[in-house]
Structure formats: structure tokens, C-alpha cells
């Protein structure tokens, strides 16, 4: 249609972006290469040793079926703590995430500290969290639940805050336009858009909590952690695989229930 000169000029930002991307790719490659060098990455070694991996897998079969009944009680106890830990973690995470999201409150004075708090929570290692709670409340389920609340908050808070920042701004505008204050804006513009993700993250965190057996074991809260320890301590891999299978079943059931619930509700 028109001469090709404007074309050339106009495709140049396109090319510019390409160059930028090429540079980023090269940078990433360089970082990967250095990391590989640092850790001694070697495909040939992996290939050579791969057959050994099966030794362990073989030992896990067949699972120790008789062990199933023994671990039902601790699994239930773990679930119990995970339910509480996740619920309160999620309840605390949501407001924090809303405060941290830059598109809802739009006040750096609040966003920045909230984000900082979220970061801090996530940095505290489980073990330290457990040590502190045990020091205060002694060993037992309560300290376990508190520790779980701590890291559910970390997980959910971070993830949900990022998805809040990614929501469609249109409905937010509509709510601002009808004169909604921040809370109403959140209730009608933000929440409906992120509930699906919020549920997904909470469930994920629930799952993590069920598996956070090690930490629960640390605080003497019972749960499945001690059984893992014991089975591994005796190199009893058949029992280890039994515990894994049991956990898998629990996770799948929970997944199934939650998906069908979600479908019913929406």
C-alpha cells in the first residue's frame, strides 16, 4: 500500500525487543552454565548411576499393607491439624495480601510494609518457627497448628497477592465508579475474581500441611512425621511407601471433594 520505508521504521521496535530478548536468553544461559559448573552437573554421571535408583524403588515394593491400619490414627491427627493450620493461615493471609496488592489500595505506605511482612514470614524456617512455639506453648498439637498457620500464611499470602495484582481492572473501575470504598471494592470487584485461585492456593497449602509431617513431628504433635522417621530409621522402605500411598489417597480424596464442591458452587 504505502512505500516500504515507514514499514522498516515501524518494525524496528519489534527488532529491538527481539535483541533484548536474545540478550536476556544469553544471560540466563550464562547463569545456568555457571550454576551447573558450581554444582558439578553431569549427565553422564546421572546416566551411569541411574540403575542404582531402582534399588531403592524396588525396596519400596510391595508396600507393607498391614501397616495401613497402624497409621490411620496419626494420619487423621495430621489432617486435623492441617485443617486448622490452613484455615487460620488462609484467613490471615487474605487481608495481608489485599494490603500488599498495589492495584487495590494503591498506597505505597501500606503496600510496602505488608509485602515486607509477607516476605519475612516466608523466610523464617519451619524449624525455627517450631522451636519458638514449642518454647512458649510446650510440645503438642497446639504448637504444631501454630507452626502450620505460620507457613500457610506465607504460602497463600504470597501467591494470592500476586494473583490479585493480575486481575481484570474493569470491574474494579466499575466499583470505584459507583462510589464503593476499599472494602466494598474488594468484596464486589476483587473477591469474585480471585476466589477460584484463593481456593486453589488454600488447598495446595492444605496439602503441603498434610505433608509437613516432619515439622509436626518436631514439636511432638504426633501426626505422621514420627512414623516417617521411624520407618526411615529402620530402612523399612515398604512402610515408607505405605505412608506415601496413604497420603496420596488422602490428597486425592480431598482434591476430588474440593473440585466437585467448587463446581457445585460456581
Amino acid at each position, binding site marked *: 500500500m504505502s512505500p516500504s520505508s515507514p514499514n522498516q521504521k515501524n518494525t524496528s521496535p519489534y527488532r529491538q525487543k527481539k535483541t533484548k530478548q536474545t540478550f536476556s536468553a544469553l544471560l540466563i544461559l550464562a547463569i545456568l552454565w555457571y550454576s551447573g559448573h558450581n554444582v558439578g552437573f553431569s549427565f553422564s554421571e546421572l546416566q551411569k*548411576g541411574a540403575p*542404582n535408583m531402582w*534399588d*531403592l524403588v524396588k525396596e519400596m515394593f510391595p508396600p507393607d499393607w498391614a501397616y495401613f491400619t497402624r497409621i490411620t490414627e496419626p494420619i487423621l491427627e495430621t489432617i486435623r491439624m492441617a485443617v486448622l493450620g490452613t484455615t487460620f493461615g488462609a484467613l490471615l493471609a487474605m487481608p495481608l495480601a489485599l494490603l500488599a496488592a498495589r492495584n487495590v489500595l494503591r498506597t505505597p505506605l501500606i503496600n510496602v510494609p505488608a509485602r515486607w511482612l509477607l516476605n519475612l514470614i516466608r523466610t523464617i524456617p519451619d524449624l525455627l518457627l517450631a522451636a519458638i512455639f*514449642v*518454647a512458649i506453648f*510446650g*510440645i*503438642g498439637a497446639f504448637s504444631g497448628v501454630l507452626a502450620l498457620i505460620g507457613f500457610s500464611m506465607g504460602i497463600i499470602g504470597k501467591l494470592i497477592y500476586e494473583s490479585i495484582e493480575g486481575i481484570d481492572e474493569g470491574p474494579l473501575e466499575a466499583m470505584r465508579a459507583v462510589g464503593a470504598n476499599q472494602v466494598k471494592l474488594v468484596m464486589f470487584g476483587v473477591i469474585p475474581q480471585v476466589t477460584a485461585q484463593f481456593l486453589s492456593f488454600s488447598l495446595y497449602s492444605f496439602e503441603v500441611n498434610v505433608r509437613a509431617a516432619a515439622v509436626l*513431628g*518436631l514439636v*511432638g504433635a504426633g501426626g505422621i512425621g*514420627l512414623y516417617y*522417621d*521411624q520407618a*526411615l*530409621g*529402620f*530402612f523399612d522402605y515398604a512402610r515408607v511407601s505405605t505412608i506415601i500411598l496413604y497420603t496420596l489417597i488422602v490428597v486425592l480424596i480431598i482434591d476430588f471433594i474440593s473440585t466437585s464442591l467448587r463446581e457445585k458452587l460456581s
Partner: protein
Amino acid sequence: PEENTGSDENDNGTEEATGYVPEELRVQFVPSQNADTLEAKAKPLEDLLTAELDIPVTVSVSTDYNTIVEAMASEQVDVGFLPPTAYVLAEERGAAEVILQAQRYGVNDEDGSPTEDLVDFYKSQIIVKKDSGIESIEDLKGKKMGYQSVTSSAGYVWPAAVLIDAGLDPLTDVEPVTLKGHDQAIISLLNGDVDAAATFQDARNVVTSDYPSVFEDTEILEFTEPIPNDTIAVLPDMDQEWKDKIQAAFIAIGESEDGRAIIKDVYTHEGYVKSDDSKFETVREYNEKVKTE
């Protein structure tokens, strides 16, 4: 296998292949639980051993003896530092053969301070609060007892044997509480979560900085019999000459002044003595004695 029967002189020519000859020595170290300071350092030992053995040595530090045993079972590690119970289990799996044991200073029974003697064993203790009214093992009946995991020699096996000897079932006559960490056991005792705790001697040192009056507030109810110290074990099918070489190297390190300073600082070891599997019969016996299932 305590005698050195290998032919040291036949370096060249057709040497009988007595086993596997390492070209590079891979050592993994798991700190024993019965220490009150630990450093996650590999380099010092690496340097000391390289100097002694003239082959490249890599040392890694791990927090879990499962990894050493599995790595040794698939010949990814040549030498492992294993706690006694773990060694027995590894030996059963054909993954390890003990050649040395670590030495430490003994612990003063009165105040938990170190003694002058180097020993290759340690003890474990059952500890209660001073004003608890528990005066003998029999008094523990019906009380809450803090143990470590059932694979722990000092935190479960030996103390449980003490209870058995006194006519108590360690799992049903007391209310067992499994704790993770000997420090945790002491703290749970202090804050009343348990009435008595089984720990190594003297685990109270670990918590003195957090709780300075721990020695005044608690007392030892009973000591156990000696428990063999940590082992240094090698792959069973290693060439005998090499087993000897490694044995000699560790002993030499323990005897040299620099070496000793380093192993003391980093691993709280004072030296190494030769050892063999027979010394661990007691461990097997104890394991058998307290076996639950």
C-alpha cells in the same frame, strides 16, 4: 578382621585383587547427636585426609544417616561416620564395615563437665526435675517419659533397657512421648511437658545458654551402661590395604597436634582408635532387648 594380613610390599606386578581400590576417597560425615557444638564443615577433614592419603578426598556433611547408608550401599561413598545404631543397621544391609571409633573425653557424672580420660564410649541418662519426688526408676511408673525416636541409642534403646531391668515396660508402664532432639527433651522436662527424659550425658549443656539454671533445676535419676561411640566405617569390599591405610590415617590425624585441634573444634572428636564389629554386639543385644515388634 583386625589383623593386617595384606601384602604391603607388592606394589608392582600382579597383585591379587583383594577388593576395590579407591582412586578418590569419598567421605560422608553425620554428626552424632551427643554433641553440644557442631560445625557443618567439610574442608578441614578433607585437607587432613588428603595430606595423609595422597589421593583426592571429598568430604560432605549430612544431617541424616540414611543418606550415608544408602550412598554406601550403592558405592557412592567410601567412608562414613555413623552413629552406633545406624552402623548396626548398615552392617546388616552389607553396606559398612567398622574400622575405627571416635574418642571423646568422658563426662563427669557429678556436674556434666568433661573428664581427663579419653574414652570410646558414652552414656545416656534419665533425668528428672529436682523437686519431682521421683527417686528411683520404679517411681517412673505411670509418669510421662520423653524419648527420642526408637532408633536412637542414647535417647531410647539404652534407657529403655534400664526400665526393663527395673521391671517396667518402657512403652506401656510409662506414658511415652517421642521428642525430636535431646535439647527438646530437656526443655520439655523443664516446662513440665514430660516428667522424665532420656538423653545423652550430659545434654543439659546444650540448653545452658537458653536456660542457665538447668543444672540446679534438674537431677540425674540413673545412668545407662556405656554406649559405643560413633564409628568410622568403610565399604566392606574395599581393598584391605586401603582399609589399613585409612585406619592409620585417621589415627595419625588424631595424634598430630594440628589435626587434633581441628577434629576437636569441628567434630568434637579427640582422636580415633581401632575398632571392629565385635564391639557392636552390645548394640545388637540392646536392640534385641528393647525390640517392640
